[in-house]
């Protein structure tokens, strides 16, 4: 069973079109959505996602609109869990409690905030659990064994299963060559009873196929941002027509990753 977590940047290229892209993802077979709220300084992201964030912010993205989009998505597709990805600055600015309340109310299942690691989190993990939200830690292959152990103990004590596995060092978007080491690492994490959302540099159905036995879902991010970028350069006609063509392009890309032609 191949499951995808499809990533998109809210507000890219516009709020409306990003919603169409999300619909295309779900209709193409996405099992999870990862909605990124754009931040002005996304240090963990590569050029494609950076550009998408800049464009979304230039288009006037606000948190209010972002939560509204997530709310609409979660109502339309209650069967597709939505994880919200963003950076500490946005989560912290008006208060972590405020941000998490908004997320909960919008129907979010969990959050990925890479620069609030579990041991410097400003209370974010506990506050998320209190609300029944999943704070998703990012695990990297270079993580020290005792640190991983510390994290696992924390997760166990709260019955938390979801973790995000970055398959290599570096930033999003660069290609990843899956090695035996990757798969061994994933196998060992899976054996610990964790539900893995694994990604970084995933762009082919062969990669999805190779990862699927070990993970809850394969995360596809920059590749889909690239699909959206390429599609919008050819969009024509009314807003409605543009939305339909974008949705179709994204749908096709996602379904091809799951079920190659």
């Amino acid at each position: 069973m191949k499951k995808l977590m499809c990533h998109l940047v809210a507000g890219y290229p516009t709020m409306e079109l990003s919603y169409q892209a999300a619909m295309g993802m779900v209709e193409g077979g996405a099992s999870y959505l990862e909605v990124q709220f754009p931040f002005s300084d996304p240090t963990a992201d590569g050029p494609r996602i950076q550009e998408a964030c800049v464009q979304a912010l230039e288009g006037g993205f606000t948190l209010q609109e972002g939560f509204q989009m997530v709310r609409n998505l979660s109502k339309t597709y209650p069967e597709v869990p939505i994880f919200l990805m963003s950076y500490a600055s946005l989560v912290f600015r008006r208060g972590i409690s405020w941000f998490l309340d908004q997320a909960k109310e919008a129907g979010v299942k969990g959050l990925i905030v890479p620069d609030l690691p579990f041991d410097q989190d400003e209370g974010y993990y506990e506050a998320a659990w209190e609300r029944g939200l999943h704070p998703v830690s990012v695990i990297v292959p270079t993580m020290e064994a005792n640190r991983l152990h510390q994290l696992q103990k924390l997760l166990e004590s709260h019955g938390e299963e979801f973790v995000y596995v970055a398959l290599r060092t570096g930033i999003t978007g660069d290609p990843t060559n899956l090695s035996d080491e990757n798969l061994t690492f994933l196998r060992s994490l899976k054996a610990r009873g964790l539900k893995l959302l694994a990604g970084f540099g995933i762009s082919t159905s062969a990669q999805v196929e190779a990862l699927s036995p070990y993970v809850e879902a394969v995360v596809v991010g920059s590749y889909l941002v690239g699909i959206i970028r390429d599609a919008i350069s050819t969009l024509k006609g009314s807003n409605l027509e543009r939305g339909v063509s974008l949705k179709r392009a994204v749908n096709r890309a996602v379904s091809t990753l799951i079920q190659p032609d």
Partner: protein
Amino acid sequence: MRVQPSADRLSKQEVGERQSPLRGFFGSFGGRYVAEVLRKPLDELEQAFLSIVPSKEFQAEYQEKLKSFVGRPTPLYYAENTTRRLGGGRLYIKLEGLAATGAHKINNALGQGLLARRMGKKRVIAETGAGQHGVAVAAVCAHLGIPCRVYMGEVDMMRQKPNVFWMERYGAEVVGVSSGSRTLKDAVNEALRDWASHPDDTFYILGSALGPAPYPDMVRTFQSIIGRETKEQLAALGLEPTALIACVGGGSNAIGFFSPYLYPEGWQAGQVEKSGQRAVGSSDTVNTQRHLSAFPSIGPRLIGVEAGGRGPGKGQHAARMSGEGKVGIVQGYKSRFLLDEDGQVLPTHSVSAGLDYPGIGPELAYLGDMGRIEFTTATDKEAIEAMDFFARTEGILFALESAHGGAAALRLLPSFSNEDVVVVNMSGRGDKDLFITARELDRERWKEFLQREVASLGDSL
């Protein structure tokens, strides 16, 4: 009792665990809010910093190069003409800009460069805004024989072309950053991304006392030479300072210059206000109100001068402490930043690229909130006027960044008595600003000159 480090040696205390029971924190500011991929390289860096930097061998090498390569000690100059002209306190200027490559940046670049070599790193990366840190790193890497790449926003590359040229002469590869606002903060982002992609062989020489721990501690440690030297130079004259004044961008010259005077005697680790620290955080619930002024002898007034730019208003300045700064978490550390309601980083402006940055080093923010450091601003115009004033009155050319400190000194000097000793740090010298100051102060003749230059380039093709 707190040990006062001597000028030619860093004490263990200077390097290591300081004011907070949580290493890397200053009150609730600082920390290491980074993606997991950067955690291990930062842990390794911290270990190396704590074990290598205080060692005799490291210190011997560092101190020797501070003399022979950097040109230390830098002079402490009595600004007699200014003192006579303005009345009030006696003004001294620490001529830090006479260090090699024209600014204090070299103290830190050399320290981190030597640490990189001792850690066996094969490659150095750095960010730069005005180009002063980039030039310093490029020179140090040439000296040490380490390949060097400097990230610089494309906007900064345009306005600081001469420094791009000098970095390349020193053999550095200068990479333009086209993301975001294409200025210093984006160069920091790009350097962090590079480091995340090459954590094993690469050393990131960060230029200001900010970023994730251990950088704020490390940069202060390497810049503390400015303050320790000043203190000795004053002591040799039989003087105690009444006030110290420095410009503040990220704040590396200020924290280094203020370092011997930051915490009163008797101050101990563990006394830090913790309220808000473990609570669920937000910009508005953090409380670091704990006043050092409760101590009987607090030391000289410490005055930080931020970029007032064109005046108040979003995007017009870079005043975090004296302006509209909010507590936030950006680029791996918690401090005060210029942020909008959603937490997006706001644009900034200053005539001096070195102060044109939305965040301030966490230790300065902490000491500002506690009332130990006073913050004020100087506008673009005041800085340029101060630069001009000191050139004519003293024969000393301030960098535009440092001229913000100079402007505040000119404003405040008459409020002191003639027993008082006021020291301003001229963190850099002004040669690098030729293209900015000439167009501001001598526009027509400068334009004619440039047109002639362009024409003559055409002739020789």
